[in-house]
């Protein structure tokens, strides 16, 4: 007895009508014995499965109701007050949420972007811009790398053998400031010539409110002392509506750029200029005079040792005394030139202006600052994108591969 009169198929593969027929039969729209046989088969297959346990169904229903209740509580409760969820009864440990992963990814990208962006900053810019000194960065740009070399390139190292010998001679002569016999850097972007002896100078004009002039003046004095210099002269004039303080500072040439940057942070900078004077010839001449006088002294001493008559001896001693004076003068002159090279003179003017505080709030400055912020933001975004896009591509590739691998492993269970 054939009890299962199945409808036939094409044998090799389904045609559209076969699929349509079974679809219609199973959704109840198909009629006829063939449709009935499909439905009968479906019902037989479904009946083979043991029914779901009522206890399990009830328990699962309660659990779903619990999820719903918890979800409703979570939605209605203020953020952060959601009770901790109990440990899952089925499945695997909950993975970190996508927002958390996204947050971590973005944080990593930003950190990477900052790390990558850091070396982009110009190497010579050690001057930090300050909200109160908008021109500080611009000044650092104008000064160029030469000013920063002043602190990083000691005299001998930067100026070559000639400079070294000069430094040594200056030290030997007892003159002050042997450390700055030559100055490799040049102000105002002037090209530094190795082996040249240069005298640096600068002037800077700061603005402050009249009542702040004295405070700024005090800070200028303290800053000068802390940088190893001294105030050569100062004058402070305070008034109700105006005020002014002028300083003449003497600073180590090597610290000029630092000090100017620090001065620029004390108050907004209205004007600033730097100067450089080459005093190599003067220095060489002074050095030569010392060398000549020293050579003459040695010649006189040799002649004295060979003198035989009283007259010769007295004459030589007199010339030695004159020579001693010449050597002292020559060394003093060399010391003066060396001091000029090793110290920089800075004229500081603090101008009291009742509008000083609003000076920085001009439209131009606002636009400039906004432009800078936008530029930096764009650079950071660009770098972040440069980091994130490859990461995203790798993540997508990994996710695709993982999905394919999981699917492969699942299908492998089915065999074939």
């Amino acid at each position, binding site marked *: 007895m054939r*009890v299962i009169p199945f409808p036939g*198929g094409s044998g090799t*593969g*389904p045609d559209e009508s076969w699929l349509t027929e079974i679809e219609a039969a199973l959704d109840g729209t198909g009629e006829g014995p063939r449709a009935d046989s499909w439905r009968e*088969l479906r019902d037989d297959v479904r009946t083979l499965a*043991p029914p779901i346990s009522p206890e399990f169904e009830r328990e699962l229903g309660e659990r779903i109701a619990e999820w719903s209740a918890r979800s409703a509580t979570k939605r209605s409760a203020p953020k952060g007050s959601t009770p901790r969820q109990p440990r899952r009864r089925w499945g695997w440990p909950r993975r970190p949420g996508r927002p958390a992963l996204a947050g971590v990814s973005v944080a990593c990208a930003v950190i990477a972007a900052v790390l990558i962006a850091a070396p982009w900053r110009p190497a010579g810019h050690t001057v930090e811009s300050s909200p109160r000194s908008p021109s500080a960065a611009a000044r650092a740009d104008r000064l160029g790398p030469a000013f920063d070399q002043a602190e990083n390139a000691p005299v001998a190292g930067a100026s070559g053998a000639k400079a070294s010998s000069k430094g040594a001679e200056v030290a030997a002569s007892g003159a002050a400031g042997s450390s700055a016999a030559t100055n490799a850097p040049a102000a105002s972007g002037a090209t530094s010539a190795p082996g040249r002896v240069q005298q640096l100078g600068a002037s800077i004009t700061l603005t402050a409110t009249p009542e702040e002039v004295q405070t700024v003046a005090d800070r200028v004095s303290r800053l000068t002392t802390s940088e190893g210099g001294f105030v050569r002269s100062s004058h402070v004039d305070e008034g109700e509506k105006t005020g002014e303080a002028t300083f003449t500072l003497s600073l180590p040439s090597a610290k000029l750029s630092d000090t100017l940057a620090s001065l620029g942070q004390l108050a907004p900078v209205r004007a600033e200029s730097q100067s450089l004077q080459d005093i190599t010839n003067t220095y060489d001449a002074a050095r030569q005079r010392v060398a000549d006088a020293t050579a003459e002294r040695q010649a006189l001493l040799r002649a004295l040792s060979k003198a035989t008559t009283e007259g010769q001896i007295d004459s030589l001693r007199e010339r030695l005394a004159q020579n001693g004076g010449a050597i002292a003068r020559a060394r003093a002159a060399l010391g003066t030139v060396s001091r000029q090279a090793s110290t920089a003179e800075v004229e500081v003017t603090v101008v009291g202006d009742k509008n000083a505080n609003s000076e920085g709030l001009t439209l131009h400055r606002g636009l400039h600052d906004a432009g800078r912020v936008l530029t930096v933001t764009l650079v950071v975004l660009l770098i972040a994108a440069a980091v994130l896009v490859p990461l995203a591509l790798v993540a997508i590739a990994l996710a695709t591969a993982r999905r394919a691998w999981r699917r492969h492993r699942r299908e492998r269970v089915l065999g074939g």
Partner: protein
Amino acid sequence: MPERMKLDEEAFDRLFREGAADVHGYAISLLGDRAAAEDVTALAFERLYRARARLDRGRGAPRAWLFAIARNAALDELRRRSRQPQSELPEEMHDGGNTGEDAFEQLARRATVRDALAALPLREREVVLLKFHGQLSNSELAKALDVSESNAGTRLHRALTRLREKCNELDDREEVA
């Protein structure tokens, strides 16, 4: 951008009431183990609940999603246990309350179907179970199997043809006996 649909609490509850027994039936028929089938059923509903806010309408109705999840969970369970399911389908069957000669004939037919189904390779049996327990359309079946619709149709056709052949064989053997 795939169109998203949100499965609200009420719809989810309705899906549970209408689909829990079917998911369980699919799982127990595939795994041959009541405890494992209950785990798979619970896991499928839990995963669907968690994903209810981001269902992709392109992947069919929530019921199709539910069975796709249940299938993955069942295959994971099979893989995790690293053993094949019981070669025999569960013995317990329902006669639907019929009595007499019809009931006997029905029982005999179902026994034949059960034996034929058990004789099918697991890959083909799974397609039949998914189609009949899930009551999925052909396109939904393709989505659940993660294959193209034509591929799903081919697999369904092959499985049902093989099932028919097995049933005929068993019938012939019974008649000879």
